[in-house]
């Protein structure tokens, strides 16, 4: 009996090992589709972009490239308009992150309080986030329309009309208008995420702080903020990456105008690639964007590690 059992066990184990699902290649099998996806849709295009950025290639003849070395980079960094584009990109990203996370936090704190109709308010607040970006851009454009827009009419009625009539055509007001629209679209997301983070703050900690005589601000700073800080960090990183990549809203509202005042890196890239048909310059601009994104990601990791170390101490 004992002998039989001893012989049976290795047989069944042997059968399991023979199954492809049990082999050491199984992980590779499961990883293959994802790896293929990354290679086909990310690694190859990125390699192609790096190659293009060192060539003179036009969209009309993309197969005929001429190697120009660093010429594209020298040209774009020597162009004053590109300097303005970089500044606009930084302003756009910083204001979007601060505006979306800040307003989201305020709204989340309000929604975290008990009041009548809180459920309805929580549902309504998600509407701008749920709306497609194109719809948001078109609604904003109509609201800001010089002739029929409700915002313009209101501003004119109270004597604060924009000189020239059109907010989106004003070099002074176009970027603030685009930023306001972007933040309006983003803040529901940040508020919902932060609301869930706020709900995870232990009540006993806030009650203990209150009992120890801490005021609202001190309780928030010492207890609540410490709990939600990692979520805020993650949101800031997400908002930064999304803002660096945002295209449709800016393009539909202003196409980067007037006179380049709302032109971010992505808009400049698109304009170079598909309007000027200069794929080489566009790829060089794209590489600048990639480098900025890498700096942001590495910076955020550095900050996250520093915060973790500080907390451990």
């Amino acid at each position: 009996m004992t002998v039989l059992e001893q012989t049976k066990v290795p047989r069944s184990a042997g059968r399991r090992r023979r199954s492809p699902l049990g082999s050491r290649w199984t992980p590779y099998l499961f990883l293959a589709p994802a790896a293929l996806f990354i290679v086909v849709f990310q690694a190859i295009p990125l390699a192609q972009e790096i190659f293009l950025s060192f060539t003179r290639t036009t969209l009309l003849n993309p197969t005929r490239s001429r190697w120009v070395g660093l010429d594209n980079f020298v040209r774009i960094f020597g162009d004053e308009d590109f300097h303005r584009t970089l500044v606009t990109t930084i302003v756009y990203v910083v204001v979007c992150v601060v505006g979306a996370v800040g307003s989201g936090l305020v709204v989340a704190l309000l929604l975290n309080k008990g009041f009548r109709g809180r459920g309805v308010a929580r549902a309504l607040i998600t509407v701008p986030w749920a709306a497609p970006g194109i719809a948001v851009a078109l609604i904003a454009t109509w609201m800001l329309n010089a002739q029929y827009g409700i915002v313009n009419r209101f501003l004119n009625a109270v004597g604060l009309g924009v000189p020239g009539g059109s907010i989106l055509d004003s070099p002074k007001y176009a970027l603030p208008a685009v930023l306001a629209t972007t933040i309006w679209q983003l803040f529901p997301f940040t508020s919902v995420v932060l609301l869930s983070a706020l709900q995870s703050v232990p009540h006993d900690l806030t009650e203990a702080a209150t009992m120890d005589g801490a005021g609202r601000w001190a309780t928030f700073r010492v207890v609540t903020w410490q709990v939600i800080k990692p979520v805020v960090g993650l949101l800031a990183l997400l908002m930064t990456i999304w803002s660096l990549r945002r295209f449709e809203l800016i393009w539909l509202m202003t196409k980067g105008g007037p006179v380049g005042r709302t032109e971010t890196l992505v808009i400049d890239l698109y304009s170079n690639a598909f309007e000027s048909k200069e794929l080489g310059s566009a790829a060089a601009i794209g590489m600048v964007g990639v480098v900025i994104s890498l700096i942001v990601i590495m910076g955020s990791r550095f900050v996250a590690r520093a915060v973790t170390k500080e907390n451990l101490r």
Partner: protein
Amino acid sequence: MKKRRVRRSMMAATTTIIGVASILLAGCTADSGGDDGGVAKISFAASTFGDPGRGPLLNQWLEEFNKSQSKVQVSAAAVPYPTFGQTVLTQMGSGQGPDLIRFDMPEFEAASDAGLIAPLDDLVDVSKYTLLKQPDQFVVHDGVRHGVIFEASNYAMFYNADLIPKPPTTYEQFVETAKSLTKGDVFGLAFRQTEAEEAGVWQDIFNYVYGFGGKWSDGKTLTINSPDNLKGLQAYKDLYDAKVIPKGADAATFRRMFAEGKVGMELNNGGYVTATRGQNAKLNFNVAPIPFPVRTQGAILAPVVINEASEEKEAAATFIRWTLEPANQVKLQEILGASSVATVTQRSAESLKKTPFLPVFDGLTESSLPQIVLGFEAKTPDIRKVVVQNVVAALQGQVDLKTALDRAQQQATELVG
């Protein structure tokens, strides 16, 4: 045993990779039509297929072609005007795209220069037809025919006849009329003035530049900042500053305003007669030559071309030959309204009764020019971008007009080498 397991696993992994790759590649492959049971299926891209008024009529006209043919079937591809060139040129650059394309001149020149358009000389014998010489000369490069005029539409002054019983005949009268009509939500004039409508602004400022004796080049050198150009563009800016136009309104908006009687005048091409009627059949409007000092104005020349990458060039040429037949030219002209077509055609008595100002457009053909930079045809889209950006900067008060034109001259010169 172990080797077999490894082999089996490798086979499974390879099959998965090949399967996924096949699906991905199948998704990436475009369907470009082609032969289907002996019938060549071709596509014809034009922004005008989406025009209110003209679009449905053009689609009916294509159906007439399809009914007349047993071996070729053409389908319409309506691409919106603002992104037409960009969309179609991108497709053509990658060896794809529609078989037939109705281009505007700047994009036509860019495509022609890049070798994306099939020469027509061996496909269509134009000597059989009486072509209009003035517009036709611009679609032949160094003796090689790259297209046939589909539509030639001269610019003129559209005016609301209820608001303006007698049209202005001088620039001073033009300004005075615009100012006197502007009141409340009615504007005396409308034109494009935002960077978002780059191609449209270019078309509009072309009339001011050439109407004041200027030109974008002398054929060899760019003359963007010449005194005459400055004079013409100053007139354009003065009207902008005089608040006689609905600022910020795009063409779609102010054309609707014109159709609703809220805009008194606009400079537009003959193609918009049908569209304007489509928006308001009761609008009492008329047309007169643009009252600028020099009688030279822009014209929308829109050639139809065959994509060099098309696998159905002969079928596409069949369509062009059908288009050039006299009866079909007359029908096309009726659809296009006040535009001309490739050949010399007679306006019908019915058309003249319905649209008495048709001779005004026809009379402008000899003095109309395509909106390209002569001598730098293929670079026109790039020069256009530079000029429009700088002119808009001047409109917005970022810089004075002379400095803007000097900057445009410098940037465009660097661009064309």
